[in-house]
Each structure stands twice: as structure tokens, then as C-alpha cells.
């Protein structure tokens, strides 16, 4: 028979040493008496030997489990842990079998200790001792944990309250932190702690943050069991708060006047806009676009994205619609496709900065998917509703050449977005005669999965941009003489 006496302070380390020795010597669980808390040793203990030394290897998961379970108040915890350790020798996979009866019980105990630690972090209440102006202020708390939680939890308080001295006294163990050093002493009876002025303020806060119109006593008690109440100053206010809540809620409701239906205002807000042409002054165009509610796209979007650039530009570039980034920033072509376009334009000598750049549709159309927004192509009706803004921008800029990027732009400018791969690189004319050079949208290049096809498409876009650049230069040389 072996006998392992576990100390009240430093239990985790002591248990680990003892278990290591027993296991290394192959001593079965039934040959060990575990003892703790100063209770009388078993009848056979007089003939018992202390634990031997040794070294063993156990799954890491078990070490973490044991380091919690040793602090449980159940006297059988040591033998349970050792019994399970003994079983682990033959079956290492046992740690991940959540249906195992022994492990399930240990996990339960682990959870109870963790919960108790969590409650200690929450429900310890310090009172100030001595001078509030001292360089290191001094505090003390009395706490009654369910398990032996002071020792494993004290480091939390040391990390949090490092610039003051404090002590947490319990019937079991006292944690004392002085001058940055943490130590443990045996338990105390409940001390008389001095009154603290902040406590009254805290009770005031507790009383007033409670909303009497939503009394939920059970929800409170399941998280803050009554056993903790006696050491929490604010808990004394609870019975009265509960008792007066229904009357206070009723008084609030009765004091309230009646109201008209909400329908009327909603109907008013939905009045359709009759005029399809926008005829305001140029300076008001961005603001007008921003307040557009013609199609439903405005609802989920952050903001509308009007075009930008010199209003006397020769070249107008029309894309499809703002993307995720443009929607947040409020400016066109700032996302990945915009950056790619800028780079290609610079390579091919297209005067990107001198162009007016905008989109066929001004609000971002997307589908929420988890924490992402998936881009969606605007439909015919949305393109149609947004025409009024594109037309206003065309009237404002009166470009010599329009570069249509992709099918949506072609549809908005020319009435059809079909067969875009065949039409690209050609110039078509709008009803009023303005030439439109059709090309691919840069975001298409970002989406082509095949590398060869992507490079070919990039080359196509480059060629079109060069064509636009040349067209503009030729036009200038034609005019100048």
C-alpha cells in the first residue's frame, strides 16, 4: 500500500509528482491512498509508503485536464485522475473519446472548476484599506469559492492589478500580492473589512442600470447563483428591485400617450419620382445621385458612387457598377479592378487622369454571404433606372470618345450588351453620334481562371486601350492645324 498526502497549497504540482512516480513504477490505482484537506488517513495508512520517483510521458491534453481537476472539491478527484491515467497507458486515443464514462466525469469536474474560476474573476469585490494617495494602494477581498480555486486564479489578479497591493482571503487559502510578489497562506476566518465609499456608488449604478420593464429573475440567478450574493454588496438591492419592478413598468406604460398609425409616413416616403430627366445645376449632381431611390439597390448599399474627373474631358470611361471597396470609399475604380485598369492604362499611354470615369449603375449590387459581399451583375431594369444619372453625366462632360468597359456599360450606352467578346475593339455610335469603343471590363481579367486565356484577354484590353489613346491623339492632330 502507498500513501500520497496532498498539500493544500501547491496541490497541482504535488499530484503530478506523485502520479508520475506511481505510474513509472507500475503501481495500480487500487494500491494507492490519496489524501488531502487534513482528513484522517485511511486505516491502512500507517503501513503505507510514500510515492516513488520516476518519469513518464502522457498526452498533453491530460496534463491540462489534471491541472484543473486537482482543484475540484470532490475528495475522490486524485484517485479518479490516477485511475484514468492508468487506463491511458494502453489506449492513448482515449483522450478524444468524449463518450467514455470516466473521461466524461473528469471533463465535468474540469468544467466545474473552470466555472468556479470564472465566477471568482467576476465576483471578488475589493475594499480599500488605508490611504488612497499612497504610491501603492492596498485592497482586500473576502471570497468563498465552491472549489479550491484561489491558487490557479490568483495569477489572473496579478496580471490585472499589478500596480496595487491586494489580498484575497478565503476559508481555504489566502492569496497575497505585495510589492509585485504573489504568495499563498493558509485560510482565514472572515475578516472585518473597512467601509468603502466607492461601494455606495457601485450600488447606485447597479440599481439604475436595471430596466424594470424587462424583469428576468431566472436568467439572473442561473448566472449569479444566490450562494455568491452574501459577499457582493450590490446583491442586497436585488429583492427590492424585483418587488417594485412590475409597478414601475406599469407606471411607465400608463403614463404614455397614444399614437397615429405608421402607415401614412411609409406611403409618403415611397412616392415615385415622375421626371426621368435630371435638370439640376452641375454642382448638385453628386448629391442628387447620392439620394437616388429609383431602384431597390440603394437600400443595402452604403452610398451611391458618382463619376469623377474633369468635366471637360475628351474621354469618358464607363464601367459596370461600384464594387465592395468603391461602395465604402464613395469613389469609382478604387478596388482591385480599378487598380488593374490604372496599371494597364499607364502602360498603354491612355490619359487616365484626364478622363472622366464613372459607372453605368451607381449603387453596388451584391448578395450577402456570411461576412462577404458577392458582386452581382445589375439587371436591365436597374440599368434602365440608372440611365438618368449616366445621361446627366454625359450631358455634363460631352466627351469626344466613350470607352465602354464590359457588357453592362455597352448595354447602358448602346442598348445592347450581347456578344461582347466579338464586339470588343470596335467603335459603335450612340444615337446622338458619340463614338463608343467597346472593350472588356478589367474585373473579367481577374476572374478568368485559365492563365493562357487570362493573358490573351489582358493583351486584348491593352490593344483596345492603345486604340483609344491613338484615336484621341489622331483627333487632336486633325483639329490642331
Amino acid at each position: 500500500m502507498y500513501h500520497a498526502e496532498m498539500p493544500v497549497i501547491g496541490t497541482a504540482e504535488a499530484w503530478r509528482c506523485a502520479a508520475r512516480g506511481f505510474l513509472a513504477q507500475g503501481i495500480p490505482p487500487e494500491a494507492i491512498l490519496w489524501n488531502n484537506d487534513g482528513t484522517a488517513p485511511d486505516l491502512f495508512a500507517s503501513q503505507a509508503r510514500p510515492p516513488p520517483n520516476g518519469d513518464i510521458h502522457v498526452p498533453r491534453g491530460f496534463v491540462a485536464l489534471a491541472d484543473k481537476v486537482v482543484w475540484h472539491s470532490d475528495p475522490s478527484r486524485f484517485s479518479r485522475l490516477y485511475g484514468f491515467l492508468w487506463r491511458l497507458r494502453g489506449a492513448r486515443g482515449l483522450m478524444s473519446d468524449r463518450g467514455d464514462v470516466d473521461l466524461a466525469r473528469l471533463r465535468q469536474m474540469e468544467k466545474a472548476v473552470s466555472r468556479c474560476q470564472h465566477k471568482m474573476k467576476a465576483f471578488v469585490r475589493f475594499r480599500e484599506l488605508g490611504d488612497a494617495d499612497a504610491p501603492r494602494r492596498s485592497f482586500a477581498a473576502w471570497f468563498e469559492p465552491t472549489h479550491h480555486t484561489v491558487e490557479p486564479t490568483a495569477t489572473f489578479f496579478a496580471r490585472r492589478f499589478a500596480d496595487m497591493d491586494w489580498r484575497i482571503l478565503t476559508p481555504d487559502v489566502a492569496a497575497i500580492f505585495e510589492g509585485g510578489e504573489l504568495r499563498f497562506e493558509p485560510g482565514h476566518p472572515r475578516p472585518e473589512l473597512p467601509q468603502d465609499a466607492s461601494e455606495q456608488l457601485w450600488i447606485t449604478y447597479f440599481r439604475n442600470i436595471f430596466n424594470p420593464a424587462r424583469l428576468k429573475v431566472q436568467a439572473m440567478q442561473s448566472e449569479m447563483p444566490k450562494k455568491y450574493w452574501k459577499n457582493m454588496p450590490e446583491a442586497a438591492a436585488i429583492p427590492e428591485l424585483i418587488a417594485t419592478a412590475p409597478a414601475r413598468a406599469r407606471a411607465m406604460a400608463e403614463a404614455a400617450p397614444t399614437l397615429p398609425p405608421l402607415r401614412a409616413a411609409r406611403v409618403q416616403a415611397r412616392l415615385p419620382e415622375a421626371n426621368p430627366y435630371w435638370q439640376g445645376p452641375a454642382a448638385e449632381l453628386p448629391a442628387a445621385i447620392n439620394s437616388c431611390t429609383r431602384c431597390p439597390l440603394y437600400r443595402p448599399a452604403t452610398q451611391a458612387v458618382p463619376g469623377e474627373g474633369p468635366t471637360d474631358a475628351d474621354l469618358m470611361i464607363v464601367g459596370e457598377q461600384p464594387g465592395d471597396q468603391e461602395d465604402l470609399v464613395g469613389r469609382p475604380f478604387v478596388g482591385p479592378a480599378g487598380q488593374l485598369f490604372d496599371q494597364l492604362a499607364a502602360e498603354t499611354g491612355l490619359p487616365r487622369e484626364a478622363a472622366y470615369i464613372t459607372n453605368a449603375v451607381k449603387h453596388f449590387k451584391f448578395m450577402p454571404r456570411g461576412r462577404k459581399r458577392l458582386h452581382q451583375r445589375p439587371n436591365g431594369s436597374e440599368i434602365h433606372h440608372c440611365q438618368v444619372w449616366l445621361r446627366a453625366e454625359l450631358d455634363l462632360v460631352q466627351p469626344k470618345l466613350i470607352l465602354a468597359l464590359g457588357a453592362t456599360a455597352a448595354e447602358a450606352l448602346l442598348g445592347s450588351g450581347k456578344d461582347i467578346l466579338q464586339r470588343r475593339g470596335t467603335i459603335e455610335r450612340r444615337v446622338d453620334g458619340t463614338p463608343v469603343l467597346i472593350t472588356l471590363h478589367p474585373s473579367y481579367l481577374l476572374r478568368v481562371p485559365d492563365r493562357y486565356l487570362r493573358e490573351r484577354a489582358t493583351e486584348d484590353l491593352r490593344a483596345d486601350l492603345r486604340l483609344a489613346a491613338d484615336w484621341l491623339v489622331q483627333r487632336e492632330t486633325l483639329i490642331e492645324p
Partner: protein
Amino acid sequence: MTRQTLDQKLAILSDAAKYDASCASSGSTKRDSRDGKGLGSNEGTGICHAYAPDGRCISLLKILMTNFCIYDCTYCVNRVSSNVPRARFTVDEVVKLTIEFYRRNYIEGLFLSSGIIRSPDATMSEMVQIARKLRQEENFRGYIHLKTIPDAAPDLIAEAGLLADRLSINVEMPSDAAVREHAPEKDPGQIRKAMGDVRLRKEAAKDRSHTGRRPPRFAPAGQSTQMIIGADGSNDAMVLGQSTRLYSSYKLKRVYYSAFSPIPDSSAKLPLISPPLQREHRLYQADWLLRFYDFQLDEITSVTPDGNLDLHIDPKLAWALAHREMYPLDVNRASREMLLRVPGFGVKTVNRILSTRRHRSLRYEDLLRIGASMKKARAFVVAGGWTPGRLTDSVDLRAQFAPPPEQLALF
């Protein structure tokens, strides 16, 4: 007027803050004061330091800087036309309260909100001053949550994000029309732009410079928002539609739903109903399914004809009852995605089932030990030693979960 004491101010300004639903203090950067030069720590998980009898936790000192306000939002107790008593903290008073409460382990930090006084900029700059004083003079390393004012200057919001762990901007109502109706001075577009701006700054703060230095983190615990439920005519499909857009557009950490509750001296424009706490609860459950269980919005809201969630049973159970052709599932064979759709199985339960399945096949008792809520799940699963038989398709299955019909009160 006699001067108010700190205690009187605290009473008024915490009373005014009790309608804010957010209390989270988790998810920020890890830090502590072991160097002895500061106060406080943050370990990633929040701590609830007390619970009020309304069942809500008290984690942060949740107060208003002032409840004077120039706006007239109908749902708000602090609107300009309300007759509630008014008070205003000084910067030093808020700092002192936070530090003294924190030292006594009452709180995890500060959640500061405010009525709008003088101008949005003036209000926001005073709030930033409080945060700056806490961080820089008191070396406070606990949690700070600032409720930003959407109309405030961008550089004030930028500084707030560097000092606070979390920023929030309330969308207030589920639809733009309702915001315009109830909060005439607030602009839903401006609120969205402010949220977009926070997301962009947060993302910009992730990029290292060319020397590899990381810029200071911007609102490391993210941003959140709050929506009032039950004050306008929106149904749950509209509410959840709004939140999915908010999550995807602005990468919000949380959307809080706050059941509209009667407020003292409430406006004539609001319905006189008791707060639909159950509805709020169901919305949180549905929100959870959207974010962690891969449910799509229409799956959850199409189960009932009016677009509202079933108040008697939770949304996952409601979905399962409407799709019984997919059940029962064999816990020993079903995929992770399908197991997550079993009522009574949470993410933890499913992970435990999958890890145990690698060793052996699971029996009914194993599921109990793993922590599954078998009272709910038993009708939908097959396991060793258990088949639900005709239970899955039984006509009265819903009745087994729904609360018994209540006798209406006569008086």
C-alpha cells in the same frame, strides 16, 4: 438649481444608458499590467461582473456622458422633447468612476455613450478626451467601448478607434424609412458611411509599412451596432435581412437587437406594448444560425408565412420540423454540415461527435454524455441503440416542444 452630487449624476446617467443592449468585453488584443506601470488586463474573453434582475450582465460601466440631447428621436428617453431629469459628467468624473470601479473588480472597463450636446463634433471630442485620459494618464489597460456619433468629423472617429477596443454606431431601426420617421435628424446613409469608414480604417491598420512595422491597431474588438425591435412595423425577415447586409458590408462583430421597452415620458408616436423579449431572443438565435451554422436567410424566414420567427420554438427546430424529409440523421454517418442542422446539437456537440466517431460508433448514452440536448434531438437522429421510429413524422411533434397553451386572463 442645486448642484448635483456624483451619486445623483451616476443615478441619472446610468438609468439613461440601460437601453443599450451591448455589454460585450471580449475579442480585443491581449494585454496586462504585469510591468507594474498601469492598471488592468484584457485576456480575450470578457467577464460578466454582476447580473441585474433583468437577466442582463454587467460587464462594463455603461453610462452616458450626458443625457442632454439636441435630437428628437421618438424611441429615445433622452430626446429633446422628453421631460426626464438631466445631468452631465465632467471628463474627470467619468475617468475617476471607471478607475475606482475597476480597482475594486466591479467592471471590465467603460462603455461610454452620450446624448448629442452643442454639436456632434463637440460631443465626440469630449468622449475622445475621456478615452485619451484613461489610456494616457491613468495607463488604463482595460476595455473601452465608445458609441460614436455618425455625424462627427472623421479624424475624431479615427482617434477614437486608436484609443478604444470597440466602436459602435447604431443603425437604430430595421429600415431607412423607420429611421427617417423616428429619428428625423439622423441620416441612414450617413450612418452607413460612418460604418464603412470604420471598416476601411480597420483594414488599413492591418497593412504593414515597407519597413515591416505594424501600424497601431484600430478598434481591435471590431464594431457593433444596435437595432430597436418592435417600435416600427418591420417583420423578422426585414430585421434579419438588414443584419446580414450589415455583417457582410461592414464586417460587424455583432448586431444587437433591443426589444423596444416602454420608456418614461414616451412619445405619442410609439406603440404601447410590453417589450417582445421572446422575439428579441428568437432574433438572436436566428442571427447565430446565420453566422455560425451556415443557414441562409431565406431558409430561416421562409418557414413561417408572415416573415416572423415562431415565438414558441427556436428557429432551428422550426426549420427541422418543416424539413422532416431530411431526418432522422445517423449520427455515426452524417456530415458535419448536416449534424449542425440537428436541433439540440451545438457546434461543440458536433465537434465532440466527430472526434469520438474516429474511435468507435456512438450510442444514445454517449450523446447524453457529450452534452447534446437529447430532449430536442431524439426525434431527429439515429444512434446505436436508438431509432426515433415514427416519432420524426408524428403529427404532434411540434406540440411536444411548444409551451402548453395558456389560459387567457379574464381581468
